[in-house]
């Protein structure tokens, strides 16, 4: 058994006994599900616990748990394990950060409970309950998000005006909103889209307008279509190197003139061409050749408007 597995198991068993005390008579299956192990593993843990205890290891010194009568677990003697171990810094911080972000979710039903839970947890782990500046609130239009929240609650369809970041086209589409996800400073609407005929994710900040949709609701039982990504090779000047982080590109080497050679996955060549355009030459598309030619053509087409004046 590896070191990490025995540490994990020990950690679980230390937490198991106080939890069982608080949930007297719980079924083995329920406890196993709660601790994310199989019922067989949980039973092994229980068998191990009842042979452990204080040195001497006589009947009065061992942990005593009854779990064979009816599949329900009763702790009879926990010895010194009746209280849970304090939360590790990681355990406490992951919960506190989660609470802090939950607090910023629009329309969250009980903000007070989130704040008091964080305060209690902080005091239990000896942390000052000071104001912690954590912000993951994406910029979203309140009127639009309120309309979407209402539509989700009522299972109603909406007409949205969406500014596509890929094609730069403004489109009207009918959607059945499912959920708004706030993740790492971004907000997405997950919805079934009539235009795509499939489940789609929309960036909330690109939804320009919403209106109630009339008529029957959309049929959401459709297949999700994923476009297979292609890979581009780009030469990027330091002034545009931020795209490496933001777009999750991969540095593969150096290019001429102080530039970085970058590999980037993309789904739609129109988007890749516009990305290159927007950087005014700081990003050179090397591959694929079709996208490279596409940039030259798009730039020439745009120049034509200016030549006429």
């Amino acid at each position, binding site marked *: 058994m590896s070191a990490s597995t025995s540490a994990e198991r020990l950690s679980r068993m230390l937490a198991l006994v106080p939890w069982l005390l608080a949930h007297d008579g719980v079924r083995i299956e329920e406890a196993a599900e709660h601790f994310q192990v199989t019922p067989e593993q949980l039973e092994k843990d229980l068998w191990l616990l009842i042979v452990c205890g204080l040195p001497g290891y006589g009947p009065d010194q061992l942990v005593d748990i009854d779990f064979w009568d009816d599949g329900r677990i009763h702790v009879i003697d926990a010895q010194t*394990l009746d209280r849970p171990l304090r939360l590790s810094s990681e355990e406490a911080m992951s919960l506190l950060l989660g609470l802090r972000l939950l607090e910023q979710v629009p329309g969250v039903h009980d903000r007070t409970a989130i704040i008091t839970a964080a305060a209690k947890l902080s005091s*239990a782990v000896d942390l000052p309950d000071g104001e*912690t500046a954590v912000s993951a609130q994406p910029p979203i239009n309140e009127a639009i998000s309120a309309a979407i929240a209402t539509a989700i609650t009522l299972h109603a369809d909406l007409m949205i005006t969406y500014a596509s970041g890929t094609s730069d086209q403004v489109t009207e589409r009918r959607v059945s909103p499912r959920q708004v996800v706030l993740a790492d400073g971004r907000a997405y609407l997950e919805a079934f889209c009539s235009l795509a005929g499939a489940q789609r994710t929309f960036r909330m900040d690109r939804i320009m307008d919403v209106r109630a949709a009339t008529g029957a609701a959309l049929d959401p039982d459709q297949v999700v279509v994923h476009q297979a990504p292609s890979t581009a090779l780009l030469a990027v000047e330091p002034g545009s190197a931020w795209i490496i982080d933001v777009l999750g590109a991969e540095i593969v080497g150096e290019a001429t003139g102080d530039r970085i050679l970058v590999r980037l996955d993309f789904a739609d060549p129109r988007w890749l061409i516009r990305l290159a355009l927007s950087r005014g030459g700081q990003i050179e598309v090397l591959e694929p050749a079709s996208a490279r030619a596409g940039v030259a053509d798009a730039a020439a087409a745009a120049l034509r408007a200016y030549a006429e004046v």
Partner: protein
Amino acid sequence: MAAPRIDRTERLLNLVFALMGSGQPVSRASIAASIPGYDPAAGQAAFERMFERDKDELRGLGIPIRTVLDVNGDVSGYTIDRDAYALPEISFTASERSALALAASAWQNALVRSSAAAGLRKLESESGSADLQGESPAFVARIDTGEASLLSLLGFLRSRQSVTFDYKSPQSNSVATRHVDPWGLIAQDGGWYVVGHDRDRDATRAFRLSRMRSEPRAAGAVLHPAPAGVDLRSLIDPGTRGGDHATASVRVAAGGAAGLRRLSTDLLPADTAGILHVSGPTPESLLSSVLFAGDDAEVHEPTELREAVIASLTRLRDLHAQATS
């Protein structure tokens, strides 16, 4: 017949019981003699190695093993104080339990998720489990990042500690050690940043967590706290939030230039071509937005922007018309 093999978990568990049981320090000799799994026949050196490893592992789990010294300063034994070990009495309301359960489930990264779940289970020993029945909420919070430094930075932020870390500059490939008084953690557009006072540059800076090349380490108390009332978001990217400092009038094509239309308050229907008044934080960001629209946009005013667009498009065309080297 050989002695039955004792499972390592069993040995560790019995060690916890032994050290927490009596309230008295337990000597190494007594540990070696009484706890099953420390093979007395294996010799002193083997015991020492095993015991050191076990002690480190328990401390790694957060179990507070205290080393007790005698009057001569020699180690007389080890003990676990129950008060230091046990989570204090804590009671959560049903709403607070639901909030904690939702907070734990926000994490998408498997490692942090299991940490949060383990913490939640400890709290649930005190107050019972959350009842998360019912419909899923319209809005949910999710944490996609797996940056381990997020949690340690949150700890340093709360304890008002300064931090150092190795950081890869966004402009070059060079890595340097930075020293920062942290003011806050900000998520923007999929990335996490720590904002604060950069001690080396003596200026306000934002550092992207994905560019850190070492775990952040504590480096004394914060000397430069955040100015009162400062908007941390405005510090990380003045470009996106600093107001509208550049304006232009642009002719846009019907149905196109979606990005530019978002920069305008004009009521021009999406399917209609026309002149739009757009505003952006900087001339550079406006230039970029106009270029993104390609031939769906033509700048009328100001002349500087119009000329910058022509120069950029000419460069783009010439650059991409050549054969690749």
